[in-house]
């Protein structure tokens, strides 16, 4: 491969990586609504679950995992019980069909054999239910690519807008009550201009929503402890 071609490929890679790192435009709004006071005692933790798909929810498993990882990390990191471990230990009471939809169902759930004991043993103080998803809401432009034995390339411009709207409902298993909600609405437009090589300027709305929601959740749950 010639020196000129190597240099061209290197430049293209640098432009692509830089473009990816720059990203598209993102706007976000994070809000919380407190209903009851919160706090965590030593040994207590949280479990993060997606609301049931039987209720029409489509929260992505990777988003649930992302929030779980982010809530557990950092200086204010909380103890996060893996959701699979929690759901399996309490089988069948947190399956999509049987999981409580409202806090008023909690007393009945806790009265079932072994449920309260297992929750106490696992050290779960709060259940955080995630609801919402990421959708492509608009898009446009055009791009055409062609490839042949001598090489290939693309030309054009494409854009698309994604909205990530999530709600986290925090249930206190000590008081069997709703502690409040945290919402994250992130909207972003991605662009991809292409002159020979496409340069993606991606707006990572889901990742932004995950980090912002996790940060707010940590602050929401331990806020009363600090006060």
């Amino acid at each position, binding site marked *: 491969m010639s*020196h000129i071609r190597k240099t061209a490929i290197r430049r293209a890679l640098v432009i692509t990586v830089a473009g990816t790192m720059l990203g598209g435009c993102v706007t976000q709004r994070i809000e919380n609504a407190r209903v009851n006071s919160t706090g965590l005692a030593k040994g207590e933790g949280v479990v993060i679950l997606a609301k049931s798909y039987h209720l029409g929810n489509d929260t992505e498993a990777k988003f649930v995992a992302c929030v779980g990882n982010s809530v557990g990390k950092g200086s204010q990191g909380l103890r996060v019980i893996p959701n699979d471990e929690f759901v*399996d230990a309490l089988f069948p009471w947190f399956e*999509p069909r049987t999981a409580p939809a409202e806090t008023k169902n909690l007393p009945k759930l806790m009265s079932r054999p*072994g*449920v309260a004991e297992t929750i106490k043993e696992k050290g779960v103080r709060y259940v955080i239910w995630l609801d919402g998803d990421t959708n492509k809401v608009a898009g446009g432009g055009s791009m055409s690519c062609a490839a042949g*034995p001598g090489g290939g390339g693309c030309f054009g411009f494409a854009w698309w807008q994604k909205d990530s709207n999530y709600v986290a409902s925090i249930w206190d298993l000590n008081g069997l009550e709703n502690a409040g909600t945290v919402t994250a609405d992130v909207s972003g437009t991605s662009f991809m201009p292409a002159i020979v090589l496409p340069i993606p300027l991606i707006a990572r709305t889901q990742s932004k929503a995950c980090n912002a929601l996790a940060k707010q959740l940590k602050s929401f749950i331990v806020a009363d402890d600090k006060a």
Partner: protein
Amino acid sequence: MSMRAQKPSFLEATDLVFCWSISAVAATAILLLAGCAGSNVQLRNPTIPEPLIDQLPLKVAARYPEAFDHFVHEEKVIGKEKWSIDLGESNKLLFTHLFGSMFTDFSVIDTSTDARDLDIDALIEPSIDAFEFSVPKQSQTDEFAVWIRYRIKIFDKEGVQIANWPIAAYGKSLSGTFGGDAALQRAAVLAMRDAAALIILQMDKSSGISKLSNARLQQQQDMAQPSADPDNLQSTATEEQHDESH
């Protein structure tokens, strides 16, 4: 270094063109195959956790149909992709684990055994009425979904059918999270767990199986009552007195 040394020779240039062509053909072939081939997914030993429930005090036996030994379902998607899922003995494992957790005494019998010869309260015969799945191409989403319709027939110890209960279970999984095959496997396991949850939640309400337990208790009490009859007590006492006189 001279300019001539930097330029590729004719042989190198030919090789380069040849490599590009082969790569392009290979990539196209892979894309075409990936678009048409579908997949053959196998499910072995699905994870059904130990349920947190109180066992029903019943002696129950289950008899499984042949389909539970090796269940395979195939679907053609829009006449191109052929997807198949092989559940193997997963259904048998699911029901054995589930009923073993639900009843104090549980056993599996084969098709040649007459349940009326056994000392049991109930015989359960689960079967599959229908199995369906959808892949992202069909639903125009990122989801794999599985529907299983089981049927549970319950017979009392006399062989009289007391319940014929259809159960519709559903599971779905996103392809982006687990990848195609794993997502379909996950959706099938979720559907099985959904069936298990539904059976635990509604078994008694839908079949009234716990009445068989009450019937057994009543029968035991009835059998115990004659021994508490005053005449019997009298005879026992007489015998005891007789024994003591010796």
